[in-house]
Protein backbone atom coordinates (compact mmCIF):
# COMPACT_ATOMS: atom_id res chain seq x y z
CA UNK A 1 0.00 0.00 0.00
CA UNK A 2 1.41 3.40 -0.99
CA UNK A 3 0.48 7.02 -1.10
CA UNK A 4 1.91 9.37 -3.74
CA UNK A 5 1.87 13.07 -2.97
CA UNK A 6 2.67 15.90 -5.37
CA UNK A 7 1.33 19.10 -3.87
CA UNK A 8 2.07 22.69 -4.75
CA UNK A 9 -0.44 24.96 -3.07
CA UNK A 10 -0.79 28.41 -1.60
CA UNK A 11 -3.01 29.93 1.05
CA UNK A 12 -2.76 33.48 2.36
CA UNK A 13 0.76 33.90 0.99
CA UNK A 14 1.97 30.62 2.49
CA UNK A 15 3.38 28.22 -0.09
CA UNK A 16 3.29 24.47 0.33
CA UNK A 17 5.56 22.22 -1.67
CA UNK A 18 5.50 18.50 -0.94
CA UNK A 19 6.44 15.63 -3.20
CA UNK A 20 7.01 12.12 -1.94
CA UNK A 21 5.91 8.53 -2.16
CA UNK A 22 5.54 6.58 1.05
CA UNK A 23 3.96 3.62 2.74
CA UNK A 24 3.46 2.32 6.25
CA UNK A 25 3.82 4.80 9.08
CA UNK A 26 4.89 8.29 8.00
CA UNK A 27 5.88 10.80 10.64
CA UNK A 28 5.32 14.43 9.61
CA UNK A 29 7.18 16.83 11.86
CA UNK A 30 8.28 20.44 11.90
CA UNK A 31 7.98 23.74 13.73
CA UNK A 32 4.75 25.66 14.27
CA UNK A 33 3.58 27.20 11.02
CA UNK A 34 5.75 24.92 8.88
CA UNK A 35 2.70 23.59 6.98
CA UNK A 36 2.08 20.19 8.63
CA UNK A 37 -1.66 20.63 9.04
CA UNK A 38 -2.05 22.31 5.65
CA UNK A 39 -0.28 19.35 4.05
CA UNK A 40 -2.61 16.84 5.69
CA UNK A 41 -5.71 18.88 4.88
CA UNK A 42 -4.62 19.05 1.23
CA UNK A 43 -4.18 15.29 1.16
CA UNK A 44 -7.60 14.76 2.74
CA UNK A 45 -9.28 17.17 0.31
CA UNK A 46 -10.30 19.54 3.09
CA UNK A 47 -8.19 22.43 1.82
CA UNK A 48 -8.24 23.88 -1.65
CA UNK A 49 -5.02 22.71 -3.34
CA UNK A 50 -5.65 23.02 -7.05
CA UNK A 51 -3.23 21.30 -9.38
CA UNK A 52 -2.07 18.89 -6.70
CA UNK A 53 -2.01 15.15 -7.06
CA UNK A 54 -2.85 12.58 -4.41
CA UNK A 55 -2.68 8.93 -5.41
CA UNK A 56 -3.76 6.26 -2.95
CA UNK A 57 -2.71 2.73 -3.85
CA UNK A 58 -2.58 3.62 -7.54
CA UNK A 59 -5.96 5.36 -7.49
CA UNK A 60 -5.83 9.07 -8.30
CA UNK A 61 -8.15 10.76 -5.78
CA UNK A 62 -6.99 14.33 -6.51
CA UNK A 63 -10.37 15.44 -7.81
CA UNK A 64 -12.51 13.47 -5.36
CA UNK A 65 -14.35 15.12 -2.49
CA UNK A 66 -13.15 14.15 1.02
CA UNK A 67 -15.83 11.47 1.48
CA UNK A 68 -14.62 9.55 -1.59
CA UNK A 69 -10.85 9.69 -1.08
CA UNK A 70 -10.57 6.81 1.38
CA UNK A 71 -8.44 9.08 3.55
CA UNK A 72 -9.50 9.86 7.13
CA UNK A 73 -8.30 13.05 8.75
CA UNK A 74 -8.49 13.32 12.54
CA UNK A 75 -7.43 16.32 14.60
CA UNK A 76 -7.86 17.20 18.26
CA UNK A 77 -11.54 18.09 17.81
CA UNK A 78 -12.52 15.16 15.60
CA UNK A 79 -15.25 13.65 17.71
CA UNK A 80 -19.01 13.90 18.00
CA UNK A 81 -20.17 15.17 21.37
CA UNK A 82 -23.78 14.11 20.89
CA UNK A 83 -22.91 10.38 20.70
CA UNK A 84 -22.00 7.67 23.14
CA UNK A 85 -18.60 6.01 22.78
CA UNK A 86 -20.28 2.77 21.60
CA UNK A 87 -22.21 4.54 18.88
CA UNK A 88 -19.22 6.68 17.95
CA UNK A 89 -16.76 3.91 17.19
CA UNK A 90 -19.13 2.25 14.71
CA UNK A 91 -20.08 5.53 13.02
CA UNK A 92 -18.90 4.93 9.49
CA UNK A 93 -17.75 1.36 10.14
CA UNK A 94 -17.00 -0.73 7.06
CA UNK A 95 -19.13 -3.77 7.92
CA UNK A 96 -17.77 -5.70 4.95
CA UNK A 97 -14.31 -5.71 6.55
CA UNK A 98 -14.89 -5.47 10.27
CA UNK A 99 -17.12 -7.61 12.43
CA UNK A 100 -17.81 -7.68 16.17
CA UNK A 101 -14.46 -9.26 16.96
CA UNK A 102 -12.63 -6.46 15.13
CA UNK A 103 -14.62 -3.89 17.10
CA UNK A 104 -13.68 -5.67 20.33
CA UNK A 105 -10.01 -5.81 19.25
CA UNK A 106 -9.92 -2.06 18.60
CA UNK A 107 -11.89 -1.25 21.74
CA UNK A 108 -9.55 -3.26 23.92
CA UNK A 109 -6.40 -2.23 22.07
CA UNK A 110 -7.14 1.44 22.58
CA UNK A 111 -8.70 0.94 26.03
CA UNK A 112 -11.91 2.71 25.14
CA UNK A 113 -14.49 3.17 27.91
CA UNK A 114 -17.77 1.86 26.54
CA UNK A 115 -21.28 3.01 27.42
CA UNK A 116 -20.19 6.56 28.13
CA UNK A 117 -21.37 9.77 26.55
CA UNK A 118 -18.58 11.61 24.78
CA UNK A 119 -19.23 14.59 27.03
CA UNK A 120 -18.31 12.42 30.02
CA UNK A 121 -14.92 11.44 28.61
CA UNK A 122 -11.60 13.21 29.01
CA UNK A 123 -9.90 14.75 25.97
CA UNK A 124 -7.49 11.81 25.75
CA UNK A 125 -10.35 9.30 25.87
CA UNK A 126 -12.18 11.20 23.16
CA UNK A 127 -9.04 10.99 21.01
CA UNK A 128 -8.93 7.22 21.48
CA UNK A 129 -12.57 6.98 20.40
CA UNK A 130 -11.77 9.13 17.34
CA UNK A 131 -8.84 6.88 16.42
CA UNK A 132 -11.01 3.76 16.85
CA UNK A 133 -13.70 5.31 14.65
CA UNK A 134 -11.13 6.09 11.98
CA UNK A 135 -9.59 2.59 12.10
CA UNK A 136 -12.95 0.83 11.79
CA UNK A 137 -14.01 2.99 8.85
CA UNK A 138 -11.83 0.79 6.66
CA UNK A 139 -10.22 3.69 4.80
CA UNK A 140 -6.81 3.21 3.20
CA UNK A 141 -4.97 6.16 4.74
CA UNK A 142 -5.29 7.60 8.23
CA UNK A 143 -4.02 11.12 8.93
CA UNK A 144 -3.58 11.92 12.63
CA UNK A 145 -2.90 15.59 13.29
CA UNK A 146 -1.38 16.05 16.77
CA UNK A 147 -3.67 13.32 18.12
CA UNK A 148 -1.14 10.89 19.59
CA UNK A 149 0.82 13.57 21.41
CA UNK A 150 -2.14 14.21 23.71
CA UNK A 151 -2.32 10.63 24.93
CA UNK A 152 -0.66 9.68 28.22
CA UNK A 153 0.29 6.26 26.80
CA UNK A 154 1.04 7.36 23.26
CA UNK A 155 3.71 4.63 22.92
CA UNK A 156 1.18 1.85 23.60
CA UNK A 157 -1.31 3.38 21.21
CA UNK A 158 1.42 3.64 18.53
CA UNK A 159 2.31 -0.04 19.02
CA UNK A 160 -1.33 -0.98 18.55
CA UNK A 161 -1.62 1.28 15.48
CA UNK A 162 1.47 -0.28 13.95
CA UNK A 163 0.12 -3.77 14.47
CA UNK A 164 -3.38 -2.88 13.22
CA UNK A 165 -2.11 -0.99 10.16
CA UNK A 166 0.16 -3.83 9.09
CA UNK A 167 -2.61 -6.36 9.49
CA UNK A 168 -5.15 -4.30 7.55
CA UNK A 169 -2.94 -2.65 4.92
CA UNK A 170 -3.44 0.84 6.30
CA UNK A 171 -1.04 3.75 5.72
CA UNK A 172 -0.65 6.22 8.58
CA UNK A 173 0.54 9.81 8.52
CA UNK A 174 1.16 11.13 11.99
CA UNK A 175 1.86 14.77 12.70
CA UNK A 176 4.03 15.32 15.71
CA UNK A 177 5.45 18.58 16.98
CA UNK A 178 8.96 18.62 18.37
CA UNK A 179 9.52 14.89 18.61
CA UNK A 180 9.83 11.87 16.33
CA UNK A 181 7.67 8.78 16.26
CA UNK A 182 10.05 5.77 16.70
CA UNK A 183 7.66 3.41 14.90
CA UNK A 184 7.76 5.51 11.71
CA UNK A 185 8.97 4.04 8.40
CA UNK A 186 9.61 7.50 6.99
CA UNK A 187 10.15 10.96 8.42
CA UNK A 188 8.79 13.96 6.50
CA UNK A 189 10.21 17.19 7.86
CA UNK A 190 8.31 20.38 7.03
CA UNK A 191 10.23 23.63 6.89
CA UNK A 192 8.58 26.87 5.68
CA UNK A 193 6.09 24.82 3.66
CA UNK A 194 8.64 22.57 2.00
CA UNK A 195 8.72 18.86 2.72
CA UNK A 196 12.01 16.98 2.88
CA UNK A 197 12.36 13.26 3.49
CA UNK A 198 14.64 11.86 6.15
CA UNK A 199 15.23 8.39 7.46
CA UNK A 200 13.32 7.78 10.70
Amino acid at each position, binding site marked *: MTIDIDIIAETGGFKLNARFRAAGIINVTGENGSGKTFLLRCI*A*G*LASCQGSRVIVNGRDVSFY*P*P*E*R*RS*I*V*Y*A*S*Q*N*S*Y*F*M*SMTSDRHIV*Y*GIDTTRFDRSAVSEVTEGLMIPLGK*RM*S*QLSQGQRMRV*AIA*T*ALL*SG*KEVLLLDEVISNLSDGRDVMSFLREFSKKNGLDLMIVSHGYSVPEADLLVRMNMGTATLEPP
Partner: protein
Amino acid sequence: MRGDAIGIWSLISLLLILLPIALVLYFGFVVYRSPQGYSPAVFHSIALTLFSAALSALLVFVIFTPLSYVLSRSSGRMAEAISDIPASIPHPIVGIAFLILGSPITPFGRFLTEHGLGLYDSLFGLVLVLSFISAPIYIRSAQSLFTSLNREPEQFASTLGKGRSAILYGLLIPSNARGLLSASLTSMSRAISEFGSVAILVFYISGGLFSGTETASVLIYQYYGYYGPGPAITASAILIVISVAVLLAVKFLSRGRTITEKVIRA
Protein backbone atom coordinates in the same frame (compact mmCIF):
# COMPACT_ATOMS: atom_id res chain seq x y z
CA MET B 1 -26.95 44.36 33.25
CA ARG B 2 -24.08 46.59 34.42
CA GLY B 3 -24.70 50.17 35.52
CA ASP B 4 -22.40 51.86 32.99
CA ALA B 5 -23.57 54.00 30.06
CA ILE B 6 -23.96 51.01 27.73
CA GLY B 7 -25.95 49.11 30.37
CA ILE B 8 -28.30 52.05 31.00
CA TRP B 9 -28.77 52.63 27.28
CA SER B 10 -29.53 48.91 26.78
CA LEU B 11 -32.11 49.11 29.56
CA ILE B 12 -33.76 52.09 27.88
CA SER B 13 -33.87 50.26 24.55
CA LEU B 14 -35.48 47.26 26.26
CA LEU B 15 -38.08 49.55 27.79
CA LEU B 16 -38.81 50.99 24.35
CA ILE B 17 -39.71 47.46 23.22
CA LEU B 18 -41.71 46.69 26.35
CA LEU B 19 -43.66 49.97 26.55
CA PRO B 20 -46.23 49.42 23.75
CA ILE B 21 -46.78 45.82 24.89
CA ALA B 22 -47.27 46.92 28.50
CA LEU B 23 -49.75 49.56 27.37
CA VAL B 24 -51.82 46.98 25.45
CA LEU B 25 -51.82 44.68 28.49
CA TYR B 26 -52.80 47.55 30.82
CA PHE B 27 -55.57 48.88 28.62
CA GLY B 28 -56.80 45.38 27.70
CA PHE B 29 -56.96 43.88 31.18
CA VAL B 30 -57.44 46.97 33.40
CA VAL B 31 -59.03 49.84 31.48
CA TYR B 32 -61.35 48.18 28.92
CA ARG B 33 -61.79 44.56 30.06
CA SER B 34 -64.29 44.11 27.21
CA PRO B 35 -66.42 40.93 27.59
CA GLN B 36 -66.31 40.56 23.80
CA GLY B 37 -62.57 40.34 24.09
CA TYR B 38 -63.00 37.17 26.17
CA SER B 39 -65.53 35.55 23.83
CA PRO B 40 -65.09 31.98 22.51
CA ALA B 41 -64.47 33.46 19.06
CA VAL B 42 -61.30 35.08 20.38
CA PHE B 43 -60.02 31.85 21.91
CA HIS B 44 -60.85 29.86 18.74
CA SER B 45 -58.99 32.47 16.79
CA ILE B 46 -55.95 32.28 19.06
CA ALA B 47 -56.03 28.48 18.84
CA LEU B 48 -56.04 28.69 15.04
CA THR B 49 -53.20 31.21 15.14
CA LEU B 50 -50.99 29.07 17.38
CA PHE B 51 -51.84 25.85 15.52
CA SER B 52 -51.15 27.28 12.06
CA ALA B 53 -47.99 29.05 13.27
CA ALA B 54 -46.68 25.82 14.86
CA LEU B 55 -47.41 23.86 11.67
CA SER B 56 -45.70 26.51 9.57
CA ALA B 57 -42.66 26.44 11.87
CA LEU B 58 -42.49 22.66 11.46
CA LEU B 59 -42.82 22.96 7.69
CA VAL B 60 -40.14 25.66 7.57
CA PHE B 61 -37.82 23.45 9.63
CA VAL B 62 -38.31 20.48 7.28
CA ILE B 63 -38.01 22.46 4.06
CA PHE B 64 -35.40 25.09 4.85
CA THR B 65 -32.90 23.44 7.20
CA PRO B 66 -30.85 21.98 4.31
CA LEU B 67 -30.73 25.39 2.59
CA SER B 68 -29.60 27.04 5.84
CA TYR B 69 -26.81 24.49 6.10
CA VAL B 70 -25.71 24.91 2.49
CA LEU B 71 -25.70 28.72 2.83
CA SER B 72 -23.54 28.43 5.95
CA ARG B 73 -20.95 26.39 4.06
CA SER B 74 -20.75 28.35 0.82
CA SER B 75 -20.69 31.94 -0.37
CA GLY B 76 -23.98 31.77 -2.27
CA ARG B 77 -24.85 35.48 -2.25
CA MET B 78 -27.55 35.06 -4.88
CA ALA B 79 -29.15 32.25 -2.87
CA GLU B 80 -28.98 34.39 0.28
CA ALA B 81 -30.62 37.30 -1.53
CA ILE B 82 -33.40 35.02 -2.81
CA SER B 83 -34.02 33.61 0.66
CA ASP B 84 -34.45 37.18 1.97
CA ILE B 85 -37.12 38.13 -0.58
CA PRO B 86 -40.15 37.24 1.61
CA ALA B 87 -38.87 39.63 4.27
CA SER B 88 -38.30 42.49 1.88
CA ILE B 89 -41.61 42.78 0.00
CA PRO B 90 -44.90 44.12 1.40
CA HIS B 91 -46.81 41.16 2.75
CA PRO B 92 -50.13 41.90 1.02
CA ILE B 93 -48.17 41.29 -2.19
CA VAL B 94 -47.27 37.85 -0.84
CA GLY B 95 -50.98 37.20 -0.25
CA ILE B 96 -51.75 38.23 -3.82
CA ALA B 97 -48.91 36.06 -5.14
CA PHE B 98 -50.32 33.06 -3.31
CA LEU B 99 -53.80 33.85 -4.63
CA ILE B 100 -52.40 33.65 -8.16
CA LEU B 101 -50.36 30.56 -7.31
CA GLY B 102 -53.43 28.74 -5.97
CA SER B 103 -55.81 29.80 -8.72
CA PRO B 104 -56.66 27.50 -11.62
CA ILE B 105 -54.85 29.82 -14.05
CA THR B 106 -51.53 28.23 -13.00
CA PRO B 107 -50.65 24.53 -13.41
CA PHE B 108 -49.82 24.35 -9.69
CA GLY B 109 -53.18 25.88 -8.80
CA ARG B 110 -55.00 23.48 -11.11
CA PHE B 111 -53.18 20.56 -9.54
CA LEU B 112 -54.10 21.72 -6.03
CA THR B 113 -57.72 22.37 -6.97
CA GLU B 114 -58.06 18.95 -8.58
CA HIS B 115 -56.81 17.39 -5.33
CA GLY B 116 -59.05 19.51 -3.10
CA LEU B 117 -56.17 21.58 -1.73
CA GLY B 118 -57.17 25.15 -2.46
CA LEU B 119 -55.08 27.92 -0.94
CA TYR B 120 -57.85 30.52 -0.69
CA ASP B 121 -59.54 30.64 2.74
CA SER B 122 -58.08 27.27 3.73
CA LEU B 123 -55.90 26.04 6.59
CA PHE B 124 -53.52 24.62 3.99
CA GLY B 125 -53.15 28.01 2.34
CA LEU B 126 -52.70 29.69 5.72
CA VAL B 127 -49.88 27.34 6.75
CA LEU B 128 -48.17 27.74 3.36
CA VAL B 129 -48.26 31.53 3.37
CA LEU B 130 -47.10 31.69 7.00
CA SER B 131 -44.21 29.37 6.11
CA PHE B 132 -43.25 31.62 3.23
CA ILE B 133 -43.34 34.73 5.39
CA SER B 134 -41.41 33.28 8.31
CA ALA B 135 -38.84 31.30 6.29
CA PRO B 136 -36.20 34.09 6.06
CA ILE B 137 -36.07 34.46 9.84
CA TYR B 138 -35.55 30.73 10.32
CA ILE B 139 -33.00 30.49 7.49
CA ARG B 140 -30.90 33.33 8.91
CA SER B 141 -31.04 31.95 12.48
CA ALA B 142 -30.19 28.40 11.44
CA GLN B 143 -27.49 29.63 9.06
CA SER B 144 -25.86 31.59 11.90
CA LEU B 145 -26.04 28.52 14.12
CA PHE B 146 -24.38 26.28 11.51
CA THR B 147 -21.76 28.95 10.75
CA SER B 148 -20.80 29.17 14.42
CA LEU B 149 -20.11 25.42 14.72
CA ASN B 150 -16.63 23.95 14.92
CA ARG B 151 -16.07 22.38 11.49
CA GLU B 152 -13.60 19.73 12.63
CA PRO B 153 -16.15 17.07 13.70
CA GLU B 154 -18.01 17.64 10.44
CA GLN B 155 -14.82 17.32 8.41
CA PHE B 156 -13.91 14.18 10.31
CA ALA B 157 -17.32 12.71 9.40
CA SER B 158 -16.75 13.76 5.81
CA THR B 159 -13.44 11.91 5.58
CA LEU B 160 -15.10 8.89 7.21
CA GLY B 161 -17.17 8.73 4.02
CA LYS B 162 -20.30 10.61 5.06
CA GLY B 163 -21.98 12.86 2.52
CA ARG B 164 -23.62 16.19 3.36
CA SER B 165 -27.06 14.66 3.93
CA ALA B 166 -25.72 12.08 6.38
CA ILE B 167 -23.76 14.78 8.20
CA LEU B 168 -26.71 17.16 8.37
CA TYR B 169 -29.37 14.64 9.44
CA GLY B 170 -27.16 12.23 11.36
CA LEU B 171 -24.88 14.66 13.17
CA LEU B 172 -25.68 18.35 13.00
CA ILE B 173 -29.44 18.33 13.55
CA PRO B 174 -29.38 15.89 16.52
CA SER B 175 -26.49 17.68 18.19
CA ASN B 176 -27.97 21.16 17.64
CA ALA B 177 -31.63 20.38 18.29
CA ARG B 178 -31.99 23.12 20.90
CA GLY B 179 -30.52 25.82 18.66
CA LEU B 180 -32.74 24.77 15.78
CA LEU B 181 -35.77 24.67 18.09
CA SER B 182 -34.97 28.21 19.13
CA ALA B 183 -34.75 29.25 15.46
CA SER B 184 -38.10 27.53 14.83
CA LEU B 185 -39.68 29.38 17.76
CA THR B 186 -38.50 32.69 16.33
CA SER B 187 -40.03 31.69 13.03
CA MET B 188 -43.26 30.66 14.81
CA SER B 189 -43.40 34.02 16.59
CA ARG B 190 -43.17 35.77 13.25
CA ALA B 191 -45.98 33.59 11.90
CA ILE B 192 -48.21 34.41 14.89
CA SER B 193 -47.88 38.12 14.20
CA GLU B 194 -48.56 37.96 10.44
CA PHE B 195 -51.45 40.03 9.10
CA GLY B 196 -50.91 41.43 5.58
CA SER B 197 -50.71 38.25 3.55
CA VAL B 198 -53.28 36.43 5.68
CA ALA B 199 -55.85 39.20 5.27
CA ILE B 200 -55.59 38.77 1.49
CA LEU B 201 -55.37 34.99 1.19
CA VAL B 202 -57.17 33.55 4.24
CA PHE B 203 -59.49 36.12 5.76
CA TYR B 204 -61.19 33.23 7.53
CA ILE B 205 -61.06 29.46 7.25
CA SER B 206 -63.78 28.01 5.09
CA GLY B 207 -64.55 24.39 6.01
CA GLY B 208 -62.67 21.81 8.03
CA LEU B 209 -61.28 21.98 11.55
CA PHE B 210 -61.40 25.76 12.08
CA SER B 211 -64.32 26.58 9.80
CA GLY B 212 -65.46 30.19 10.14
CA THR B 213 -62.44 31.17 12.27
CA GLU B 214 -60.06 34.05 11.51
CA THR B 215 -56.48 34.28 12.70
CA ALA B 216 -56.07 36.52 15.75
CA SER B 217 -54.51 39.38 13.79
CA VAL B 218 -57.43 39.44 11.35
CA LEU B 219 -60.01 39.08 14.13
CA ILE B 220 -58.47 41.97 16.10
CA TYR B 221 -58.44 44.09 12.95
CA GLN B 222 -62.14 43.27 12.44
CA TYR B 223 -63.02 44.02 16.05
CA TYR B 224 -61.19 47.31 15.84
CA GLY B 225 -63.15 48.29 12.72
CA TYR B 226 -66.57 47.06 13.88
CA TYR B 227 -66.60 47.57 17.66
CA GLY B 228 -63.87 50.13 18.42
CA PRO B 229 -60.71 49.75 20.47
CA GLY B 230 -62.15 48.05 23.60
CA PRO B 231 -62.75 44.48 22.33
CA ALA B 232 -59.74 44.73 19.99
CA ILE B 233 -57.33 45.73 22.76
CA THR B 234 -58.67 43.16 25.24
CA ALA B 235 -58.35 40.41 22.59
CA SER B 236 -54.85 41.69 21.78
CA ALA B 237 -53.84 41.48 25.43
CA ILE B 238 -55.08 37.89 25.62
CA LEU B 239 -53.19 36.98 22.44
CA ILE B 240 -49.99 38.49 23.83
CA VAL B 241 -50.29 36.62 27.12
CA ILE B 242 -51.05 33.24 25.52
CA SER B 243 -48.41 33.56 22.79
CA VAL B 244 -45.70 34.60 25.22
CA ALA B 245 -46.73 31.82 27.62
CA VAL B 246 -46.50 29.18 24.88
CA LEU B 247 -43.13 30.42 23.65
CA LEU B 248 -41.75 30.66 27.18
CA ALA B 249 -43.02 27.15 27.97
CA VAL B 250 -41.21 25.67 24.97
CA LYS B 251 -38.04 27.62 25.76
CA PHE B 252 -38.27 26.51 29.38
CA LEU B 253 -38.64 22.86 28.33
CA SER B 254 -35.57 23.08 26.12
CA ARG B 255 -33.63 24.82 28.90
CA GLY B 256 -34.69 22.02 31.27
CA ARG B 257 -33.04 19.55 28.97
CA THR B 258 -29.86 21.57 29.08
CA ILE B 259 -29.83 21.41 32.87
CA THR B 260 -30.37 17.64 32.73
CA GLU B 261 -27.42 17.28 30.37
CA LYS B 262 -25.27 19.42 32.66
CA VAL B 263 -26.13 17.10 35.56
CA ILE B 264 -25.21 14.07 33.47
CA ARG B 265 -21.91 15.70 32.49
CA ALA B 266 -21.14 16.54 36.10
